[in-house]
């Protein structure tokens, strides 16, 4: 949908659909995974039809997220290579967090923080997928030492990923005019100029 003919296209429909398949499966995985992690979260099993259904469904949703994330990874990996400017941006992230981003180094389609988040998420998904296999008792019967290691890796990677996604979601809420890019694909020119000036110049030629 084009709200204003001057709006800039940031994501195609395919990119958005891919992102939301990952997003929805992540939410389901976080809720069902937390339910089996700490008794505090056990009531979340009710969302999935009880404890046994939670145990049955979680790994299948995990496979869905792993493959949909792989697709997303291939779509965006080239855009997420770190440059010296990105490292400079990361070094000055405190100014950004303090709410004064006017003097931050010019950013392309993604800033240094978004790029680091991308790679951190890729590592988390890889670790979760690999460590999830020995925990899937319905289909695998691993040596007990491997299962124990996998349980720790799975828990740590999941906690880190939930933290990262919280930051990812919050950043989208905090920076006004961002979420619409993932709903209908466009952003305003002013948004692009303020937050991703190099990308703005590139797509507008200004």
């Amino acid at each position, binding site marked *: 949908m084009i709200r204003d003919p001057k709006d800039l296209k940031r994501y195609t429909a395919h990119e958005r659909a891919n992102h939301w398949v990952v997003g929805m499966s992540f939410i389901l995985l976080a809720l069902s995974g937390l339910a089996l992690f700490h*008794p*505090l979260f056990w009531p979340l099993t009710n969302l999935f039809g009880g404890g046994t259904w939670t145990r049955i469904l979680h790994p299948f949703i995990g496979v869905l997220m792993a493959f949909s994330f792989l697709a997303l990874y291939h779509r965006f990996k080239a855009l997420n290579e770190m440059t010296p400017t990105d490292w400079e941006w990361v070094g000055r992230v405190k100014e950004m*967090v303090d709410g004064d981003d006017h003097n931050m180094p010019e950013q392309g389609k993604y800033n240094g923080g978004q790029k680091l988040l991308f790679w951190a998420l890729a590592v988390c998904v890889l670790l979760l997928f690999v460590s999830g296999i020995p925990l899937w008792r*319905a289909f695998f019967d691993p040596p007990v*030492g491997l299962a*124990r290691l996998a349980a720790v890796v799975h828990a740590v990677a999941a906690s880190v990923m939930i933290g990262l996604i919280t930051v990812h979601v*919050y950043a989208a809420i*905090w920076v006004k005019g961002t979420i619409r890019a993932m709903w209908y694909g466009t952003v305003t*020119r002013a948004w692009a100029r303020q937050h991703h000036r190099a990308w703005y110049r590139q797509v507008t030629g*200004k």
Partner: protein
Amino acid sequence: MALQSLDIARRSATTTPSPSVRQTTEVAKLIDVSTCIGCKACQAACMEWNDIRDPVGWNLGMYDNPVNLTENSWTVMRFSEFEENGKLEWLIRKDGCMHCADPGCLKACPAPGAIIQYANGIVDFHEENCIGCGYCITGCPFNVPRISKKDGKAYKCTLCSDRVAVGQAPACVKACPTGAIQYGSKEQMKDYAATRVKDLNERGYKNAGLYDPQGVGGTHVMYVLHHADRPQLYSGLPAEPSVSPLVGLWKGIAKPLATATMALVGIASLFHYITKGPNEVSKETEKEVEKEDAA
């Protein structure tokens, strides 16, 4: 599986105290390996009392039958031939749940009330609460629990908790023809074991001793071994079993630490928004864009 609801010492995935007003004596089963003849009456009695049957399996050229614990075989005799100084010894061990004082299965279990430890020391699976995740297998230092292919639930020896609850000895104890399996209070069993160890010492087994591993807080199934210095000789009985440090990490510090960290990230985000305000496109930038577009 009987619901002895007043004397629960610990309940899986439960953070508040369990009903524990009734204090009961700690019980134990003592398996004297030195007087076991390998007749498997205990296996038959276990199948009879619990009314479970393994399908007829395969002869793999050994006496062990079935060859491993299964969801239908909660106890299995393990036979091992051990030669030393030109002497052959047939070491036979009745394998099954050890009913640890510090049970790795219960620690790992995510389903509230699927694993119960009674005040008498019995660690019991309540299959109706089991979700079939297999974390108990990951937590167990003795490789005991088995997930059923039929219903996806975990099973193991109950120490005949239903019989014990009404003052009966476990079925295997009843059936043993040589008195190699004894049952009573844990203290009684330790005393009885001491007499057996003394007898074995006098008969030349210098290293005879009681197997009541302290790494898991002691067990409620104990062995008298002629070679207590080398428990591994008895079909891989672990010398120093304990709940793995990885399981301790996963089900110990990781739980509150990860929960607190995740909560903190969420709360910090909220307070960041409240203190710094939203990051909006500035009026200045909007004007500049309009100017550039007009040009």
